[in-house]
């Protein structure tokens, strides 16, 4: 009995997401060059970096949408390159694009994705997630008429439907109005508390820092800074960020 407890606590401290020497080239251009980091379960990684640093590329690779050129990625013990399908069962992605069909209603979109992901008690879950993102009153409206903020909220609802263990977010705050941002951050906090693992790339230093447990700064495809939040002086972070990131002339 004691041994079992020991092992499970070992597992708790083991890496949940492990990225080792990840490289990605597009033709001759190297988008990611030797990126390595580890995340434990339940952590919140905020990914900072200027445009073109490779944040989106990194997130796309983690989501299995892009194949890495080299390197290994292990997610909950599963090798991403060998078993991408298994990885997809565990993750959800929220990016600039909402993956939602404009000519279908919010309900129809969620019904579609729910069925594709084989979600049980689908009707209930749909009502649940719509409530979470405060879109219940727009359940049967066509997505085409949604504002950007509503679209992002519905995208979150879509991602949450399958209850993914890991949530990947690629600059999710862009284009959101304050109300939507509030709802969004509340959901993120809630997910964090419930033990989900999150990786979020963002330009918003304060927001990103607020939610993070770990911080990584990416520049020109390389990690230039990687620390636990507890080790960072929050007031100094602005200056630190500017120092680490080379500005393009």
């Amino acid at each position, binding site marked *: 009995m004691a041994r079992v407890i020991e092992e499970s606590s070992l597992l708790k401290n083991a890496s949940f997401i492990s990225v080792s020497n990840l490289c990605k080239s597009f033709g001759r251009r190297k988008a990611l060059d030797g990126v390595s980091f580890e995340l434990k379960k339940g952590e919140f990684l905020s990914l900072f970096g200027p445009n073109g640093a490779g944040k989106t590329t990194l997130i796309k690779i983690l989501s*299995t*949408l892009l194949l890495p050129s080299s390197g290994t990625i292990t997610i909950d013990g599963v090798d991403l390159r060998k078993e991408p399908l298994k990885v997809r069962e565990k993750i959800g992605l929220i990016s600039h*694009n909402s*993956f*939602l069909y404009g*000519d279908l209603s919010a309900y129809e979109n969620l019904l*579609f994705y729910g069925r*594709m*992901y084989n979600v049980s008690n689908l009707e209930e879950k749909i009502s649940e997630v719509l409530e979470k993102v405060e879109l219940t009153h727009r359940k049967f409206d066509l997505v085409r008429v949604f504002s950007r903020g509503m679209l992002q909220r519905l995208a979150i609802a879509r991602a949450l439907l399958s209850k993914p263990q890991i949530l990947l977010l690629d600059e999710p705050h862009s284009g959101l109005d304050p109300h939507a941002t509030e709802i969004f951050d509340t959901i993120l906090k809630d997910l964090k508390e419930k033990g989900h693992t999150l990786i979020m790339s963002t330009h918003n230093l304060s927001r990103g820092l607020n939610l993070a447990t770990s911080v990584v700064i990416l520049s020109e495809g390389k990690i230039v800074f990687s620390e636990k939040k507890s080790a960072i002086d929050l007031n100094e972070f602005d200056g630190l960020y500017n120092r680490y990131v080379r500005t393009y002339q």
Partner: protein
Amino acid sequence: MRFFKSIMVLVQKDLALELRTKEMFNSMIIFVLLTLVIFNFAFGEVIETSDEFLGGILWVSFLFAAVLGLNRVFVHEKDEACLDGLMLVPMERSFIYFGKAIATFLFLSVVEIVALPIFSILFGVNLLLNPFLLLLVLLLSNIGIAAVGTLLSAISINTKARDLMLPILFFPVIVPILVGAVNSTRLILSASEFVADIYIWLRTMAIYDIIFLLIGFLTFEFIIEE
């Protein structure tokens, strides 16, 4: 089992989208009718004196309309990167191909079945001579068009030339279907005594269908990956 369920959900989604917008169906059916009318003007008396042209006229009209429709197969998936959304689902990527091909097949079939009575009236053709054979010809042709067209549509939508690329890629490849469909239809509609010949055409089309469904299944993921 997962295969059938996933594909059914995909097809239902495409049907729901089409029922709501009716974009594909409307443009395709109008185009077929226009083409039939234009053919009548272009060939006039020749058609009245001979049944031999009917197969050709019908299938050229159907193929042109098909290209119009095929250009739109992935248009819903381009907005808001919905194709990425589909690629994130834990399923084989070839399911997306089959879902799209089946939906395309259904749209094509509906357009053709609606167009046939109108064709029959415009050209004084008796469709009831051998309706089951005619439907079989439609079935086999549409499978081929959908199989190849879906694959090529996925390619062409990702090129600079977009809409213009599809006919260039599609028409030379669809020749066997065109030849088979035209000849089968001709044999049926002209009440030819050689109607048994039709089985060779049907067989050729069936072989074509199987081969290209297989190629589509195997190569589709290479087209949509990034």
